[in-house]
């Protein structure tokens, strides 16, 4: 649905994105990176607000810049907080629904429906100027969805939402992604992304650092073996047992907690296949199994700093 081929975007001497090549298909993909990584430039290129300086950006196999055919099928929730403060939420969404080409007869019904999806029906007739930050975020999401787009681009959509709101919106994005839509969500907050998807595009300083499933990405990083911590009463015994396997690089007992052993492996798949068998055969009682490297933070740290 979306493809970038060696796309770069410069603002004079400042890099927006640099030599990015990727394709994004249906499903929920997170665009991850610290502030200034080029996430917004990426999204502005895809939503046809910017042209690449070099390379090519295609959406539905068309160049998106000012392309009304693309805009008909794409929904965009910008990061900016600015809204038309003297409009009501309903009139704002209705105006953009009209501009998106939704027929008058169906418009009111569709606006009601989408306001319901973002839980804003109760406040739809109030002025946007009086909205809380979370409500503004919800109304911005509503306008991105009102024309039922196939691609939904959401720039930091969870900013300003309370935990309940985050959960609701995350569930909404996941639901939209299961309807064979392409949902691209940017974020610089890792735990947010972890709740949503394992499919990530990792960016830093304008470059695409990694793309794909968090787990697969992690597995590719040979320089940083995968670590797994196991808590069991027979930690020393388990460590010895595991070191018999050739793919286990090391097994370290935790100095603070003698019941915890942390192994390093370059073949996590093989390890996860073998571990249940070992545990059952030797009767280990595993209290906790944790893989700090499956945590996005770790992937992010390795890739960006590695």
């Amino acid at each position, binding site marked *: 649905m979306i493809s970038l081929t060696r796309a770069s975007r410069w603002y004079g001497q400042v890099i927006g994105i640099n030599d990015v090549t990727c394709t994004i298909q249906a499903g929920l993909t997170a665009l991850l990176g610290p502030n200034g990584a080029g996430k917004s430039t990426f999204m502005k290129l895809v*939503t046809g*607000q910017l042209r690449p300086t070099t390379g090519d950006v295609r959406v539905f196999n068309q160049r998106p810049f*000012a392309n009304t055919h693309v805009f008909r099928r794409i929904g*965009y929730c910008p990061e900016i907080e600015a809204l038309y403060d003297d409009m009501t939420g309903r009139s704002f969404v209705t105006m953009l629904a009209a*501009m998106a080409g939704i027929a008058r007869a169906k418009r009111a019904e569709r606006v009601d429906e989408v306001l319901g999806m973002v839980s804003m029906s109760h406040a739809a007739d109030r002025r946007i100027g009086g909205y809380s930050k979370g409500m503004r975020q919800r109304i911005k999401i509503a306008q991105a969805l009102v024309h039922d787009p196939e691609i939904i681009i959401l720039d930091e959509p969870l900013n300003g939402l309370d935990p309940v709101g985050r959960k609701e919106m995350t569930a909404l994005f996941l639901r939209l992604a299961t309807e064979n839509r392409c949902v691209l969500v940017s974020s610089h907050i890792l735990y947010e992304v972890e709740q949503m998807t394992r499919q990530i595009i990792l960016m830093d300083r304008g470059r695409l650092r990694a793309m794909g499933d968090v787990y697969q990405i992690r597995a590719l990083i040979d320089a940083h073996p995968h670590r797994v911590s196991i808590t069991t009463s027979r930690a020393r015994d388990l460590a010895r047992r595991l070191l018999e396997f050739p793919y286990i690089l090391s097994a370290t007992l935790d100095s603070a907690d003698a019941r915890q052993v942390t192994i390093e492996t370059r073949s996590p798949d093989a390890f996860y296949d073998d571990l249940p068998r070992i545990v059952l055969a030797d009767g280990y009682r595993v209290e906790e199994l944790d893989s700090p490297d499956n945590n996005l933070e770790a992937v992010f740290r390795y890739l960006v700093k590695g």
Partner: protein
Amino acid sequence: MVDLYLLRNALRDLASAKRLVVAAILIMGPAFIALAIRLGMGSQFDGVLTYGTLAALLVFGFVLPILAVVFGTGAVSQELEQRTMVYLLTRPVPRWRILLAKYVAAWIVISATGLLAALALAAVTYQPTPGSGRTALNRRSIVNPRKFLAQLQTPDSPVVDYVTQRLSAETLEQLSRWDPDTPAPRPLLRMVLTDLNKLIAADRRLYDPADFPEINVPDDARQLMAERPRGAANARLNRWLLEAAFPDLIRTNRTTGNKLYRDVLVLPVGAAAYGAFFLLLATILPRALITGLFLAFGWESWVPMMPGNFRLLSVMTYLRALAPHARPQTASTDMMQIFQALSPDTVPSALAWIVLAATTMAALALALAIFSYREYVPRDDAT
């Protein structure tokens, strides 16, 4: 339908409280000044001249350009600065239609505000004018008959001498017999007026102002002269030339009504031209308001007064040609009169219409093309 939404959105965007206050001040400003003049001058107040002066200097010279700068640039700048433009630019509506709706909204606001300013000014300066609109002179057209006849008897300027020589022999005979220390005899005045009315109605120009450099010919007469008038229009010109030859002695036949009628026609044309120009500026420059103000009150104020063809580079030159106003004739020479003396020619109104239409269309087309092509993403928002 979409265009209606766009227009409504653009109008709503322009009608911010701050801008409405500016508009209200601009509407009432010239009228308040006129009211002050009216109260100050009492019976000496000349409504037509006051309207003409304030319409030329304030409505066309100040209100229209400032409205065009504020609303013309504001049509785009506000949404770009507040970054709400992104919602419009990522919709399946061609960018030129978005900008065109904003232009139409700006034009409506500029025209309506300008027209209200002209109407308020006309209302405050309104007074029933003797012989309103008629080209022929009658007794009430003469402010001071004794002084008027005395001037004809002993002309104190070349132009009065010239006019006097063209009176009939019989009138001149009667005039020479009259003792200027006695009141003006009605029959003599009637004879003089009959002769002057014949000169006015004749299908030739009463005199050529170029021969009488001391004469201060008002803008509207100058403009009419450039049109090479015939028939009734020539009679109107002759009447105005006669009024210019006898300042303060012949009442003007101009009425606020017919000046207002012309202004009502021309203000929206000015709004269209200026609006398109400042909209173009806003599509190119990040801080178009400042540049716009400089152009409106620098370029547009001074260039129309420049000698030679340089003044043809100003929109105001053409607006003045379409809506000329008579301003009071003062004894002292100010800078404007010096400049006017340097460039006495006016632009024919046909040319003015063509240039204004072409300027409007060219500026608008360029603005639409640039807006369709350019990226409108602030750099600090981009990474």
